[in-house]
């Protein structure tokens, strides 16, 4: 499967709508077999979505993303794991370990949107009791051993 990570200065780009770089990863058998960086226009939603579609990822891990752009990508059948924050290698490791999304790698203020726990202690990587347990499980993407989304 192909995974795209929107990156900036070694971290996940804070806002995908204007992100200029994406790291493309080919994952096979639970290992990254190929990785290369690609440029994005970062100018408007349609150009951004078209560029991502041309790269053909199965999933995109990015930071904040506006609703219209997320809708465009959904229409193009690109799975988006939004509001992710952190070091690129940490995020990739979390993806491979099937622990993405998780509170430690989620942007501030976004846990509630995703149904993940929030507040003090969220940054320590522990999953805390979630008030919206049912929604929380519905929203979580799961990744199998091969690194594919289920």
């Amino acid at each position, binding site marked *: 499967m192909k995974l795209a990570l929107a990156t*900036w200065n070694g971290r996940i780009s*804070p*806002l995908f*709508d204007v992100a200029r770089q994406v790291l493309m990863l080919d994952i096979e058998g639970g290992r990254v077999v190929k990785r290369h960086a690609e440029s994005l226009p970062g100018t408007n*939603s349609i150009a951004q979505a078209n560029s991502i579609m041309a790269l053909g990822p199965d999933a995109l891990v990015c*930071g904040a*993303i506006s*609703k219209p752009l997320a809708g465009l990508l959904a229409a193009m059948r690109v799975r988006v794991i939004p509001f992710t924050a952190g070091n690129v290698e940490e995020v990739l490791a979390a993806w491979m370990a099937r622990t993405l999304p998780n509170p430690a790698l989620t942007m*501030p203020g976004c846990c509630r949107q995703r149904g993940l726990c929030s507040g003090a202690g969220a940054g320590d990587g522990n999953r805390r009791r979630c008030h919206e347990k049912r929604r929380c499980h519905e929203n979580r993407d799961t990744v199998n051993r091969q690194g594919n989304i289920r």
Partner: protein
Amino acid sequence: MKKDIDKNLGPGTNAILESISDGVFTVDSDWRITSFNRAAETITGIRRREAVGKPCSEVFRASMCESDCALRHTVKTGRQVVNRPAFIVDSAGRRISISVSTAILKDGKGRMVGGAETFRDLSLVEELRKELTGRFEIGDLVSRSAAMRDIFDVMPQIAASEASVLICGETGTGKELLARAIHNISPRKRKPFVAVNCGALPDTLLESELFGYVKGAFTGAAKDKPGRFAMAEGGTLFLDEIGDISPALQIRLLRVLQDRRYEPLGGTGTLFADVRVVAATHCDLPAQIRKGAFREDLFYRLNVVKLDLPPLRKRREDIPLLAEHFIGRFNRLQGKAVTGASPDVMALLMAHEYPGNVRELENIVERAFVLCASGRIETGHLPPDLAGRTAAPAAPAGESMNAQTRAIEALAIRDAMERRGFNRLAAARDLGIHKSTLFRKIKALGLVFQKHAGRAARKADLNVPASRETGENPPAGHRS
């Protein structure tokens, strides 16, 4: 976390920052948030305890963070940034317009310890600005009406998908423009956009036109000819007036839409069609299905996404905007210097019913350009019967009693007709007058109602001109 604010800014400053409506945050030398005021919490939707200690770009998520950070600029140059426009995306994915100002934070000895960023929520200002001057524009389509805005909002998503689109709307509402706009923002935009008017061609000709033919398929077929499906390969095929095609052709079209395969006329090989189909009609297709004139399965195949283009009379707020748009376009095309339309002209344009919709308005403006080379378009530049026809309903206060009575009568008749779906008998009943009286008044007041309404529509189906049925004069401004 409150201590952070106290530590950096002192209790007095903290109290002030908590009371203002602008968002304020401060960062240390590692660009991590050290304080976050109440308004910043409200605007971003992020709690202070979640924000403090995090990289500012991951909390603020502004369009300028990555390429043109205002605070970084201030730290580097020592110069403040004031009211720079940007947008942020909150946790719900909403884009919020803001303006940003920056300052450097120094300690008692004048050493730089960090920076402060102030931001103001401009979304309300932005919304009001749109209300006042806002126009939505995609391709050649311009509008400020709420009904069109709904269409514009979903267009990017429709364009990005591969689903068939059915555009419904009266003649002249801009169905082809909408189809082109969808194509131009779609991933297929670099491939051809091919438009076919299905109502303009006889059935047998349309079949060969759509699917092409091979040499010898019929007398006169001297060589192979690719069809419109082949010409639109990789792009978009726009089928206008889809409601006019024969049942036999409907079956062939259904097969292409379902299997993406077709055979040229007289050919034996099957061709694959990588074409997105956008169809349009002015007909009521469900009614056609009930009559057995249109296949239900084809309708559902086309009707994956349906867009209803409202007629111009239902979005009158667009008339000044469109008139201005056409004036600008004809000025460019014809090298003229027409500055606009006079208030009288605008009043007449606003009062007109536009059976020919946007195309009719465009033609009225084009006609005015023939007579007017510069300055403003005056009533004398309009078609005489346009002014004559609309003068009665638009009679202003201050006119004679007779003129005002006529205007009120015209308004009452229009209201009743619209309320009753242009059924004259029902409208007469509503008004408490005999239908003959209503007919006489419609004629006397010079009122014109939509062409495809009531009995006129049924007669139109039988190719009888509406004017013969209603006794109305065909409108000169009606060019559609």
